[in-house]
C-alpha cells in the first residue's frame, strides 16, 4: 500500500506534472522509473504541504444530492454550495468532494 494518497495526481497540478513526465520519457530524457519516483515525491510533498502549510478553513453548506461510501472513500456531490472563508464567501452550482481516511503524512 502506498505511503501517501495518489489522488492529488488527478488534479490540475498532478495532471500537468504527468504530462511533462510523459514528454520527458518520450524524448528519452528520463526513464519511467525516475518518473515514478517524481510522482511519489509529488504525493508526499502534496500531503505534507496540505497538512502543514494550509491553515485556512472553510465551512461548506449546500444541498447534499449524492453520497457514496465505498472502499473507505466518501464521495459527496453538493448542489448550490456556499463556501464561507475567513473574509469572503463563494458560491457555485455544484461541487464534488472526494474524502479519504485521514492519515498523517507517511502513515
Amino acid at each position, binding site marked *: 500500500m502506498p505511503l501517501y494518497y495518489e489522488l492529488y495526481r488527478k488534479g490540475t497540478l498532478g495532471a500537468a506534472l504527468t*504530462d511533462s513526465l510523459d514528454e520527458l520519457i518520450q524524448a528519452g530524457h528520463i526513464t519511467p522509473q525516475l518518473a515514478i519516483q517524481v510522482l511519489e515525491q509529488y504525493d508526499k510533498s502534496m500531503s505534507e504541504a496540505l497538512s502543514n502549510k494550509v491553515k485556512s478553513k472553510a465551512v461548506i453548506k449546500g444541498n447534499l444530492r449524492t453520497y457514496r461510501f465505498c472502499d473507505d472513500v466518501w464521495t459527496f456531490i453538493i448542489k448550490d454550495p456556499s463556501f464561507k472563508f475567513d473574509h469572503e464567501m463563494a458560491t457555485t452550482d455544484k461541487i464534488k468532494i472526494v474524502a479519504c481516511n485521514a492519515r498523517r503524512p507517511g502513515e
Partner: protein
Amino acid sequence: MTAIQECAQSAGKDGAYAIIEFLGVFAEELNTTSLASAEQARIVQDVREALPQVLQVLLGVISGLEGSPATDTPEFARRTGRQASWRVRAWRGLQQWLQFGVPGDTLFLPLLEAVLAQLRVLAAYQLRGDSDESEIAAATTAADDMVGNAAMAARFGRSVSETVLAHFAQPWLAQVVEHSDSEGALPWATMVVTFGETYTEYIAAHLDEDHVTAYLRLVVALTQFPGHAGLDEEVSVQPLGLWCLLQEALADSDTKSNFAHSAYADVVRALVAKCAYPPTEVWAAADRDARDQFTAYRREAGDALLGTFYVLRGDMLGALVDSALAASDWRHAEAALFALRSVGEAVPQDENDHLPRLFAPGALTQLQPGLTSLHAAVLSLAGAYAEWLSAHPPLLANVVPRVAAALNEPALVSTAVAALRRLCDNCRAQLGNAVPGLVQLARDSLQTLPSREQQRVLEAVADVILAQSPSTHSTALAPLIMSLLPALQADVARLTPDPDAQAALIDCLRAIEALARGLQFADDIEERALTGDPEATSMLTFAAQCYCDDSLATFRAGLLDALNRVLAVPEGLSDDLLEAMLAAVGASVRRGPHAFAPDFSQVISFVRCTWEACVARAGSDGASVISARWADLCPPLLQSMAQLATVAAPKPWRSDADTDTALGALLARAIGDICTGLAHAAPTLEAAVEQQPVVNERAFDLGARVLLERPGLLIHSEMAAAHLCKLGVHALAVPSRLALRPATNFLGTVVRLAAPSARTSPASPLLQALCSEFAPAWLRATLAGIGGALPRSLLPGLSELLFALVRHHLQPVRVWIAELLRDPSFPSPHASERAKRQFTQQLLATRSFVRAKAVISEFAIQCRNLQGTSYAS
C-alpha cells in the same frame, strides 16, 4: 541477537547515549523507506522482536526526572538522562516508534500507562516553574499520538479510554491548565481534546460516570480559558470541534443525560462570554492578524453554538434572549445577539416562547444606541431570522423600519442591505402592504448608496414586487423607472470615449440590470409552464398581458433607444460598458415574460448592431472588416447570442414570429467573423485557437447551445455550422484543456444529433451532411491526439468524442478507422499492427463508455511506448 537488540542493550552504558538519537532516526527511516518485500518483512520481524527493549530504553531515559538527585555532576546528569535534551530526544524517538506501530495487546497499554504517569511528573514540574518547554511539547505530542490512535481506539477503545480517563480525572491536569498561561496550557489542551475527538462515542455512552464528568468539566474549563481568543490565548479554540462531535454522538445514541444538559449550558455561557469583544483599548492595540484570529474564533464558536442548540433547544433560546435584553454592557448584549444569530437556521418557525419577546416593539430599541457593533448585530439578527419572521408577519412592522433606517448610516449600510435582502427574499409575500415604502426606499438608494449596495436593494425590492399580482407590477415599478430612465438618458447624452466618464452610465445600467433580475420569474415556474402546467401557464400569460402597459412599454423603448445611441459614440465602448449594456438587456430576456423585455426582434437587432459596432462591420466589398478589439469584445456578445438561442422557442404568452431567420443570420455572421478573426490572429488556426481560448470557448458553447435548444436555427445559418465543424478539426489539435473541452462538447453533440437513430428535426439533413463531410477529419485528429500528439490528461475529452462517433456511426467509423490505421506511423510508430487491431476490435465491440475509456487509455499507453511500465499503470 539482532542489531537493534544490541543497540538497545548498549544504551545506558557509559558514553552510549547517542544510541537514543540513533533509535529515533532508525524508526523514522523505517517508516519512510520502501524496500523489497522480502527484505522489508525480515527487518520488520527483527524490529518487532526488539521493540520491548527499545521502549524500555526510551522510557528509562524519559523518566530520568525521577530518581535520586544526589551528586548532580554534569557527568552524572548525562549518564542518568537528567538532561532535558536527552529526554526530549527520547520522547521524539518514542513518537517515531509509535508511528511504526506498537502492538496493542502486549505493549501499547503498559506504554500508555507509563507515558501518562510521566506526564503527571512533568505537570508537577511545570507547576513549580521548573520544566523545559520542548520536553513538555515532545511529551504531550507523543501522548497526543497515543490517545489519537484510531486503530487502538477501534480495537481497545474501552481499555484505553478507561486508562486515560482515570489519569485525566485526577486534579493534576486541571491544575496545570488552570495555573498556566496560554502557551503553557496549549499542549495539554491539545492532548485532552484529541482524546475526546477519538473516543467521542465512549464519552457519549458513559456520560454520567464520574471520570467522564470530570473529563468534560476539564474541557469546559478549556473552553472558557481566560483571555481573548486569537488576541492573547489560543487554548479556548481547541475544544470547539469536540462539542460538535459530542452533540452528534449524543444524537446518534439518543442518550438523555442530565449532566449533558448542564455541561452544554456551561458551554453556552462560556462561549457567549468568550465571543464578547475585548475592551476598546485592547482591541485598538491589537494588530490585524490578531483581530482576524478573533473573528475566525467567533465564527467557529458560532458553529459550536449551533451544535449546543441541538442539545438545549428552547432553554438556550430563552437564556440568550434574556441575556440580550438584560445585558448592562453592550459587549455582552452583542455577544448574546451573535449567539442568537448563529443558531437562527436551526430555530423552528413555530417557536413562540422566546423570540416574540426579542422582536416585540421597543425590545431591540432599548439596547444602547450609537454603538455600531451593536446595531450591526441587531441588523444581522433580523436577517438571520427572516424565515422565522415570515411566519410572524405582525413583527415585520417592528423590524423592517429599523433595517431601512440603518441604510442612512454609512458604517451600517452593508449589514443593513444584507438584512434587507434576506427579509425581502423570505417575506416577499408578507410584505405586500409595504411595497410603496420599499419602492421609495429603493428610489432614495439611487441617490444615497454606493453602486453595489444600490443594486442589492433594487433587486430585493423587485423580488417583493414580483411576488404580488402582475396587475400591480406596473404601478409599483412606475416611480423607479421614472427615476432610472431620465438618469440613463442624461448619462448617455454626456457619454464620451473616455472610460472614466463612462462610470456613471455603467452604474445606471447595472441598477437597471439588478431591478430586472429581481423581476425574473423563477426557473421552475417557467419550466412548468413550458411543459404545459395550466396554473403556471395561466400566471405567465396573465403577466405578459399586464406588461403591455404603456408605462412599461415606454421604458422598454427608452432603454433600447438609449443603448442604440451609445453604439453611435465614435471609438466608443469599453469592455465594462459593453458588458453592462448586454447585461441590462439580457437580464430581461427570458423564456418567461418580463416587465422590461423588449420585443424579441428588437433584441436581435440590438445585438446585431452592437456586433457591427464592436467586432466586425460590413466592408464596401461585402467582406467583414474585423475591429482591432474584436477578441476582447466578442465573448460577451456570443454569450448574449447563446441566451437568445435558448429563449427563442415559441411560447403560449409570446409569439416570436419570423425571428429564426434573423437570429440564424446573426449567428452565421458572428461565427463567420470569428473564423475570419482567428485566421488573421496567428499563422495557423491551431495557434489562433490556443491564443484566444475565451473566444474559442464561447463560439463552441454557442454552437452547442443552438444544437441542443434550437437546432432548427441551423437551417438559417448553415455556414455557421460548417465553420464551427471546420474549426473543430483545428481545435482538436491544440494541447490545451480550455480549447479542447468546448470543441469536443460541440462536436460530440453534432455526432449524436446526426445519428440515424436520433430524433428527426429540420436540421437533421444538414447535420448528417456536416458529419459525413467532417467526421473523418475529426476522427483523424482524435486518434492523433490519443496516439501522442496531445497529453494524456486530455484523453477524457477525446474519449468522449471517439465513443460518440463509434456509438452513433459505427459502420462508417469502422471503415475510416481501418483506413487511418493502415499507415504504419499513425497515430504512433510505437503502436504495432497487433495493438492497432486489438484496439479497433475492442473499441468497435463495446457499448460501454467505461470500457471504451479503458481501451483508449491502454492504446494511448502503447502509442507512447509505456506499456509494461509501472509508471503507466
